[in-house]
């Protein structure tokens, strides 16, 4: 019986589990088993052909989730990577969105990049004083930034259009207007895929390892020769860049930018994504975004079924659910959905005979 169990387990491991990595090339690969590579290519193909499979509304939600996952990945590099907390992620998205709203039409991709750049610069300016001090000052500084940005969004009429916000015409590529979600999807992919692969690779490089060293123990990281301020600043600016790009894409999806898209609750929503997804992996950011962004949609359909008199309670319920998700995952499953998935996989790896 033991022999059978071992045989099954070994067969399973060879096929599905990560093999032992013997060379640097294997270590750097995005997928380490043949099946994993196949899954990766199949997933990319699925992403590419998704607009053919889904209707307009699911496509809209899918685009929203992709943008959210991109932004969550940025926050994730900061929180899960370098171990710093940001409560201003929505504000950085707002900065990107407003910057992108000034370069529209054929210039839209440039505007989105520019939005990311400006957000990253602001991140550097904000991070410089607060990251030089040990402790939680960054969290408080980003909270302050969130409110200051909100004030600027509402009052700098010339650039942000005040409370009414700005509307923008659809992006154009080679004369083709990207006015529907299934066309905009490709613009999102154009930005999201490279940034995802970069984020995945980054955590394996020297810079990414330095992030984790700072997260796990800043003193020993410093002893090992890591420049703490530099690493934290880099992580923070990078996270702001991802947020800015995502914000620019969001502006294209909504075709408008108003201050109410970027309040503190959205920042907390992104923190929830990172915690729910969990555990320093890119997969975590995607799972978290998927999970957290689908909750409002599900709640919306509930309200649709129950009647409009419950709509007022919807926002309250959303806050409660996000909060409970954060608390529950922190206390019960600190590794998030990724950790949960890992446990399920390990359970089935030795399934009939776990001992």
């Amino acid at each position, binding site marked *: 019986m033991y022999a059978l169990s071992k045989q099954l387990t070994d067969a399973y491991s060879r096929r599905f589990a990560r093999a032992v990595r013997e060379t640097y090339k294997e270590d750097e690969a995005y997928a380490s088993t043949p099946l994993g590579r196949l899954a990766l290519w199949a997933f990319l193909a699925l992403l590419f052909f998704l607009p053919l499979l889904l209707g307009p509304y699911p496509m809209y939600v899918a685009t929203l989730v992709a943008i959210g996952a991109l932004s969550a990945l940025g926050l994730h590099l900061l929180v899960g990577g370098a*171990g710093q907390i940001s*409560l201003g992620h929505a504000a950085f998205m707002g900065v990107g969105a407003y910057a992108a709203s000034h370069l529209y039409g054929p210039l839209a991709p440039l505007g989105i990049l520019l939005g990311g750049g400006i957000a990253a610069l602001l991140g550097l300016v904000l991070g410089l004083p607060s990251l030089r*001090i040990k402790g939680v000052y960054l969290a408080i500084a980003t*909270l302050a930034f969130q409110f200051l940005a909100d004030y600027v969004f509402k009052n700098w009429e010339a650039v942000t259009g005040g409370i009414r916000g700005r509307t923008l015409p659809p992006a154009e590529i080679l004369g083709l207007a990207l006015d529907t979600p299934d066309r905009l999807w490709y613009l999102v992919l154009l930005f999201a895929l490279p940034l995802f692969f970069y984020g995945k690779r980054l955590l394996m490089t020297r810079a990414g390892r330095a992030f984790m060293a700072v997260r796990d123990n800043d003193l020993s990281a410093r002893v090992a020769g890591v420049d703490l301020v530099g690493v934290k600043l880099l992580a923070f600016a990078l996270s702001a860049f991802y947020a800015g790009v995502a914000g620019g894409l969001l502006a294209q999806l909504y075709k408008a930018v108003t201050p109410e898209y970027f309040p503190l609750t959205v920042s*907390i929503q992104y923190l929830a994504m990172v915690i729910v997804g969990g555990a320093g992996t890119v997969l975590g950011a995607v799972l978290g975004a998927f999970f957290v962004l689908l909750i409002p949609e599900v709640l919306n359909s509930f309200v649709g079924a129950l009647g409009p008199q419950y709509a007022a309670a919807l*926002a309250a319920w959303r806050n409660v659910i*996000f909060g409970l998700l954060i608390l529950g995952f922190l*206390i019960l499953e600190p590794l998030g959905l990724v950790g949960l998935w890992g446990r399920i996989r390990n359970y089935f790896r030795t399934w009939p005979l776990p001992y």
Partner: protein
Amino acid sequence: MSDLLPYLIGGLANGALYGLLALGFVLVYRATSVVNFAIGEFLLVGAYLTYTFALFLPLPLAMLAALPAAFLFGIIVERGFVRPLLGRNVVAVIMATIGLASTLDGGAQLVWGPDLKYLPGSLPNLGFQTGEIFVSSRAVWNLLLALPLGLGLLWLLRRSRYGILVRAISEREVAALALGIPTARILAGVWGVSALLATLAGALLAVASGVGPNLVFLGLKVFPVAILGGLDSVGGALLAGFILGILEALSQRYLETVLPGFTEALPFLVVLLVLLVRPYGLLGERQIERV
């Protein structure tokens, strides 16, 4: 000058509440090094508790009854959400307070509804007029309750047995445990006191202008106050509360005509400026760790 004085009195009245709230916040930070992002919700829940008691009791009694309830609430929060994360990264605990903030925010709205509620009854009117200046009852009550309480707590922290125990724990928790100090009980008590102070501030706000979900934003001013006073300085929190109150009053008087709405943003500008120039705040520990 005479048209400025009413603003200043209002500023001091607000500042007393900020100081009270920040006192509890800084106390928790010093004892457990947890930044409690749910402090605004403590204020909100406290105000709603007072409102609920005030439906059955006369207002002064309701405010008194809310205090032990708030103390209990603080202990429950500590037991339920802070204790299970003990020993984990401080970041995890701070995240938990963010999650708690979101939960309480939504929960309070579900229980008490989204509309502004006014307390039945009011406190005895203590407003008076000296010469041209009218001092409102609200200002008198705020100062009358906040100042002695704040100073009394400072004195307790410095002189009383429990104050010394709290300071011992914040100095070094392991050593305190080794000396047989009942650390768990005292930390729970610190959270309780923090919730109690927030509730008192919330009750005073509720008496003056009603209870609604927007109270949370007043609670968020605790961060500018705590940073300005020094994140680890209890006395600094009280002082910085008054300073921020006066700053806001000045901005209300002079800047609001030029930059409408700026008073809302001012406290957070203060945060960034203090972090840039004097990160240890007015009275904080000067040997702040830089990296």
